[in-house]
């Protein structure tokens, strides 16, 4: 056996080829009695059907949470979840919050320093002093 194969696993590049939306579930919790849920109840009645139709990739659960402030919870592919309290918010503001959760990747927010992250090797390679005309080092 002159050469052996080393077993590895290919790594995913989400968006190269297929794109998988990272938000897989949104939970909407509301209270029927409390005033802080007024905007949420109105959102659920009037805006949620169109929101769900526009985002079929997301499973949507609506459940009451009596005597509590209304909350939107997003569950993500990487296993994390994000919750936003939407008390006293207007339906449009809640819609923006739901869109925020939809577009999030589920990761903790962190500052990106490089504009591009790539798995591909650099075309020019890694510089070293032994190539490119410096023959006598």
């Amino acid at each position, binding site marked *: 056996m002159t050469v052996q*194969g080393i*077993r590895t*696993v290919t790594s995913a590049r989400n968006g190269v*080829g*297929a794109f998988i939306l990272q938000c897989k579930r949104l939970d909407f919790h509301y209270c029927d009695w409390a005033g802080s849920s007024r905007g949420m109840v109105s959102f659920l009645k009037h805006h949620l059907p169109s929101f769900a139709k526009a985002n079929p990739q997301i499973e949507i659960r609506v459940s009451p949470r009596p005597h*509590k402030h209304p909350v939107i919870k997003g569950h993500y592919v990487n296993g994390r979840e994000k919750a936003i309290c939407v008390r006293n918010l207007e339906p449009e503001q809640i819609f923006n919050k739901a869109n925020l959760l939809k577009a999030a990747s589920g990761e903790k927010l962190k500052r990106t320093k490089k504009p591009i992250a790539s*798995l591909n090797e650099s075309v020019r390679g890694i510089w070293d*002093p032994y190539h490119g005309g410096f023959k006598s080092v």
Partner: protein
Amino acid sequence: MKRLQPQRWSSSVLSPQVRAGCRLQRRIQHGLRYQTTTTPFPVTEAEAKQPIQDLVPPPKKRSSRSAISKHSLPSPPVKAARESAKLAALHARLYLPARLPLETLARTLVDESADPNPDFNNESLATLGHDLLTQYTSEYLICTYPRLPMTVIFAAMYAYVGPKTLSAMVKEWGVELAVAPGGEVDPGHLQFKRLDPGVNPNQPLKNPNRPYENEATWRRSISSKIVYDDVFGEPVRASVDPRQQVQSADRYAAGVTPEQACSQFVRAVLGAIYLHAGRPAAKRFFEQHFISRHLNISDLFNFREPARDLSRLCARENFEPPYAKILSETGRLSRHPVFVVGIFSGKDKLGEGSGSSLLEARSRAAVASLKGWYLYSPLNVRLPNSMEEEGAAPWKPVHVDLGEVIV
């Protein structure tokens, strides 16, 4: 530590029970644990008429008889697929073709270990999907890199469509695994019978078709692996005779690992796409989800004696015998010298490598030259499966040469 607040805690637990008629509603809610997009129970009459409820038929219509019979089924009933929000979301998340119905997608999520009935599990779809996956991947590898040695092809196949990759893909698709299979489980979960703790999942398989199978110490050649083993060069189970169907039913009685169940699911999805939406959709799905993943083929090589292999290669191809020359060096007498050595054949440079000793640099240069040979890729690669389309241009044979160095 957070202080307990008994009053609030008790109110949140007890308050639903105070509601009138709550017991019936709670039972319905219990049956509907995973079925969503609706409020579990309408709170006021005014709200019950709102469009939120109109999306899905109210759960009251389901008779209690069906709820009882669900528990006796090994896998969810077919009509549950239409009511599962998880399943519809998965269908949309993968951008599956509309011609692939939710019922088939639900079937791909039922492993053979969960439901031994071949009409309801994904075994047949997975067999088709596995054949398609391995065909497309091997075509891609062999046409793109026609000189790859067989062991590296096995490793690359494992990297692209091996069980580890497929189970990683299931996680990236956001598919959740059911704890235990059953008729009451939401059809959006992947259902399989888990292996009991203490059972070794990696028991060596024996293929009775293979000669001298019982000789454990004998070396297994690559050629025999091509003939008798699977696409990853691993021993394979003997194909099950349909007459011994009873035997295959309890094949998975002990359960399967999550890795096996996940890979069967991914294969079954591809098989289902092929059946329902046709060949172009299956190819597109393969390109988008499998070939688009990142793999550096040059990392898959492990050479034992690169210098010997290279001289054999040059002798076979009628090149001048290879020799090494120092291209550049620094600090020969220091603690950390660096040598850059090139390997030449005649006047042409075959490869170069650097190292902290002359032997290391020469060995790495030989590895680089051999990789230069093996990783040759022709221009304008055309795969054989492009001939399946209507009105395809006439086929031009792909590049074939001796390829692998055999010592």
